[in-house]
């Protein structure tokens, strides 16, 4: 009944788009601004581990998504509400992503446009994608990866040619010490954007050549990490540590200072495009994951129809979760330390432990009984 149709290339493209998503444009790491590029690299192993965890679950329960094997592992009574929590969590994160792109657009160019209009335009498209289904989403991702790569190449080239890069701004490499750098890698950068790969648990059952899932996924995580790290290093070397740590959208600020031969300037549009593309896929992946879980636990006959209720929820969450962008940021920082690790780390690890114990002792129980 589940026809596999995501090709390895499509998975590769989607993971990169997802990882770059908001992390490209927003300041990440919360602390240790100076060497967040290093923290990104340090957080990479954690990201790969998270991905491996979910491919492992996928191997154990090949036809199930997250909500499916949660119920298998901990039983229906505990599993059903837990899966519901995950659906709600995914809706919330999707809404956060939408808010970030909406606020960037309004701050930088659409200063007179109400946030409702901006969000509705993006959410409408996203809902349509979810309605159309997984295959369309992934095919589109493949196309847009090329866009993102070309945009990234162009803007990095322009920055390099403009001579705005001052490599010495990156010194000292370890910033305020190894401790601070590591602390910003774990948990902050590890949680956002690496552990967020949990959303892909909704897609893994649809892979066509499953034997490549691990290799392709790890490669995609590696590539996106390097791209993220280079971008953030570029930002710091262009605008300096102080401005980087104070900027609402550091990449945007860095790009606006670029001027090549008084001719190539005002490249801000490239950044906005990159963010719109990245966030569109990220929030759609989240919203889709929420839809898939909801369809699974509510046993919906036509999962596509859930696109509308889930999409509308995301739309409202995006606007109602915070009354200002700083509050949105604060909420993100707080949830990083409280709620998010539960969903992204603790529950998956507990699931793994329970699963392993069941596998070990479960059989013995049956034989002895």
């Amino acid at each position, binding site marked *: 009944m589940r026809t596999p149709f995501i090709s390895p290339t499509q998975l590769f493209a989607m993971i990169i788009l997802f990882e770059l998503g908001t992390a490209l444009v927003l300041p990440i790491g919360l602390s240790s601004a100076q060497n967040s590029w290093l923290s990104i690299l340090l957080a990479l192993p954690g990201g790969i581990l998270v991905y491996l965890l979910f491919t492992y679950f996928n191997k154990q329960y090949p036809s199930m998504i997250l909500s499916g094997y949660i119920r298998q592992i901990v039983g229906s009574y505990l599993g059903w509400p837990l899966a519901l929590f995950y659906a709600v969590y995914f809706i919330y994160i999707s809404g956060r992503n939408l808010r970030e792109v909406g606020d960037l657009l309004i701050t930088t160019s*659409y200063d007179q446009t109400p946030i409702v209009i901006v969000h509705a335009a993006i959410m409408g498209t996203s809902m349509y994608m979810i309605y159309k289904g997984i295959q369309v989403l992934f095919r589109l991702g493949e196309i847009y990866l090329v866009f993102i790569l070309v945009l990234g190449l162009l803007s990095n080239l322009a920055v390099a040619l403009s001579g705005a890069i001052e490599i010495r701004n990156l*010194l*000292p490499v370890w910033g305020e010490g190894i401790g601070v750098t590591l602390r910003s890698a774990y948990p902050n950068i590890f949680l956002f954007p690496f552990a967020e790969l949990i959303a892909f648990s909704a897609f893994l059952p649809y892979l066509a050549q499953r034997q490549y899932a691990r290799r392709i996924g790890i490669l995609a995580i590696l590539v996106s990490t390097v791209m993220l790290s280079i971008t953030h290093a570029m930002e710091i070397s262009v605008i300096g540590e*102080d*401005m980087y740590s104070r900027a609402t959208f550091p990449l945007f600020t860095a790009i606006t*200072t670029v001027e090549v031969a008084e001719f190539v300037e005002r490249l801000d549009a490239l950044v906005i495009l990159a963010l719109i593309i990245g966030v569109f896929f990220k929030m759609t992946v989240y919203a889709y994951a929420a839809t898939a879980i909801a369809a699974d636990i509510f046993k919906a006959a036509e999962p596509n129809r859930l696109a509308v209720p889930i999409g509308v929820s995301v739309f409202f969450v995006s606007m109602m979760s915070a009354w200002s962008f700083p509050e949105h940021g604060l909420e993100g920082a707080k949830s990083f330390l409280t709620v998010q690790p539960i969903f992204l780390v603790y529950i998956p690890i507990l699931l793994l432990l329970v699963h392993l114990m069941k596998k070990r002792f479960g059989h013995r129980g049956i034989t002895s009984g």
Partner: protein
Amino acid sequence: MTKRICILLLMFQFLLVTGCWNSRELRDLAIVVGIGVDRIEGSDQYRVSFQLVNPRAATGGKVGGSSISEIPNIVFTSDDHSMFSALRKTTQKVPRQLFFAHSQLLVIGESLAKEGVSDVLDFFERSHEMRLNTSVVIARGASAESILKVITPLSPTSATAIIGRLKVATDVWAHNVNEDIGSVIKKLAGGGEPAISGIRILGSPTQGRAKSNLDYSKPPTILELKGVSLFSEGKLVGWVEGKSARGVVWALNQMKSTNVSFPCEDGEKGVSIEVIRSFTKIRSRIVDGSPRLSVKVKEEGSLSEAQCKVDPGSNEDMMKLRRHLAEETKAEIRMALKAAQAKKSDIFGFAAEVKRTSPKYWKTIEGDWPSIFADCEIDVDVEAYVRRTGMRTKSLMKTNGARTSSSD
């Protein structure tokens, strides 16, 4: 079927309205090229001046067949406590909406600079319409407003005229720096002190405001770049001029090209060398618990004028040129460093360097940096090359003796 077509048509209308919400028509905009900020004396308000392009005058030629040319420089001012408020207040005087995406110059009044500029910069950083690469100058001995009001030749507005000077003079004469808002903010935020060029009015400011200023082949009132600012703890404390200003440019690694002259051995007439390439590194290390700073310059030049006997055929003469160039450079940088140290003004960004290389040490002395900098020992090391001698080898002057004997 009809339903589908209806929906399609309804969707189609969205294509027509894209961009309507935030649309701004060009004819409703007043393009601001220059912004001036002054402190009103005896008050805590700012006087903000906006220099607008007059589109009808800027297009040049005779529009509509009339030969009456309009004045190209239009300046509006408003007084208020905040930049943004002054900006919006100005709309009472201007028939169009001010548009800032093309503003190229920020002029800061000297009196405001003496009180500190960081307060007014927040607006420029926060606004999405302002650009961080807007150049900054300080009005010397005049208000920013009066600088912007001067009508200048060869350029539609005085802001573009100043930008033109900044770009060309910085590139070929190097006694000024072309600092933009972005780097001023970077430096004020902890990388030392900003070095900003001064601009002053030569002649009468009142006459400069009138179009008649352009009725002379030598305009009676002109603008001139003069000196580089010395800031200490964010406040203007002095100026460096002439050779020391050029030393500053050298130390800041902003030297692109300049002319270095030194006298011939026997007289006041001289030799000129055009510096065509220069690269400066500033470094710091901690020796016995105190910072030891260094400036290292590597430069290349070519001989552009020799009013006395120079024989490029002789290795000795060429080495002499090299040595003179290096010594002159070194002397100018030393003058600059001395002037800056005297005012406790770290415009060279040594602070950022110490912070980068010895972050732990920096933590302990952060607050006292200006006075520590003033007492620091700074090594200057110059490596100079004279690569070419232009279109001639030997100079016109055959011997040194010929000139001296005739003057006897």
